[in-house]
């Protein structure tokens, strides 16, 4: 559907709506190595992110929370992406998505790593929503670094 709703489809791509309606990896993780709450006080969105990290690889991920379609879909896409990835790959993905949403070019290699997450790039045309898309990523990168430093 389109027409009456202008550029909505550019923001809410099918993949986004799918992840929004059926978020992945929502089961809590027992004995999580990385356990953090991220929130945006301006809209009240908040997510609980848990990771199990074994041999420098994310073996398990669980994300629950509430937020708008963009922040929820983004969190779900994040969960899908980081599972099985090394911490270097996770940091690279966080960096790539930041640059992607800022409107910078990303390499083909980075695009391959992000996969479906490129669907979030529609948010660039809606600057006030960029923070929704980045909410879970920013906190995750910091928390993982803290865990590595332990």
């Amino acid at each position, binding site marked *: 559907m389109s027409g009456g*709703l202008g550029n909505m489809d550019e*923001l*809410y791509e099918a993949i986004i709506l799918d992840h929004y309606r059926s978020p992945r990896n929502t089961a809590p993780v027992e004995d999580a190595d990385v356990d953090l709450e991220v929130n945006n*006080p301006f*809209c*009240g969105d908040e997510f609980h992110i848990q990771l199990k990290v074994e041999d420098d690889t994310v073996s398990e991920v669980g994300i629950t929370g509430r*937020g708008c379609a*963009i922040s929820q879909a983004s969190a779900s896409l994040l969960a899908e992406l980081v599972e099985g990835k090394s911490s270097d790959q996770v940091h690279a993905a966080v960096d790539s998505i930041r640059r992607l949403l800022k409107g910078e070019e990303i390499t083909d290699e980075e695009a391959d790593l992000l996969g479906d997450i490129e669907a979030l790039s529609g948010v660039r045309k809606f600057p006030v*929503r960029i923070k929704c898309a980045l909410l879970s990523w920013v906190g995750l990168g910091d928390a993982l670094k803290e865990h590595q430093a332990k």
Partner: protein
Amino acid sequence: MSNSEAGSRAFDVDAIRADFPILQRKINGKDLVYLDNAATTQKPSQVIKSLVDYYEQTNANVHRGVHTLSIEATDGYELARTKVAKFINAPRPEEVIWTRNTSESLNLVAATWAEANVGEGDNIVITAMEHHSNIVPWQQLAAKKNAELRYLAAAEDGSLDISNVDSIIDSRTKIVAVTHMSNVLGTINPVALLAEKVHSVGGVILVDAAQSVPHMPVDVQALDADFLCFSAHKMVGPTGIGVLWGRYDLLDGMPPYMFGGDMILEVTYEDANWNELPYKFEAGTPNIADAIATGAAVDYLTELGMDNIWEHEQELTAYAMEKVLSLGTVRVLGPQDPAKRGGVISFIHDTIHPHDLGTALDQQGIAIRTGHHCAMPLVRSFDVVAAARASFYIYNTKSEVDAFVDGLRETEGYFSR
């Protein structure tokens, strides 16, 4: 005399709309439907022209020169003060202090009157439905003075819970600071009753009138208020200017808020003494152009008549409440009886997050507010993280309400594909 006099101009919404150039704008290819009036209202050409005329014809500094432009600027600036005083039925124009906005007015009272009068063990009473700007200055002051910050709760129906008012307001209450109308719930609070309560224990009452003065007749004497604060930009006036009204004897006894030019009477190298009211509180070159334009805004509203404005908004609110609730997917916060609320409808959709609603409506040219509305504790008390809000003003129409509700329906369709 107060602003409750009937207007001298017929309340004709089409004619009113013609005064607001921005209403001609298209947003995302659609007619603008502006429903974010509780955040700020649009400006009529009469107010815009006042700003342009001032800068093109009058611009000079006030209270300083003997030349013609300075005299004209001073006259315009002071005439605007007189208009504001009459608008809220203040006994004396010197009781009207120009500030930057409601927040500055509130901070001024917290930093001067309350700083001097609230001590250890005293208490400050506010309500659970205050804007952050009427919470945080009191939190800070209470912490600094070892005073207690007390809250009157919001009842389940969105009204103010005054069942325990006689224990909340007690002999140690120095000030009650209350919003006249909630920017989230639309609730109109019983200011006169709270004034009576706090006066009986020797305290004062401050009224945050940011959401009431633009929309209904407000009479500071009838309310028996001691301080009253509001912003021009929420009442067809310019941004960057607000008002603190206070009772003359209170203002006169208060220390200054800022120091500088215009607020002094005499300065020596060692000391200074303070100018008379209102100048004691207006340090430095004031916001002359916007003060004069605020006078033009007051003229504009007075011509329409505040009773007529209130009636128009009540009608729109009742109409909108009924239509929004008929969707069956939306919960409206605050009093369900339109007669008990102002023209602010905050709502939660069963499935669609406010920000997704806001973006979808914007694509249809409809501007609403989304988020916590600068009232985080209140919004959270409804167990939601954010709400959407439509708020009305003089230029809104029933067909705009229809467009808004149709927009909600379209959005529901979009997200349930």
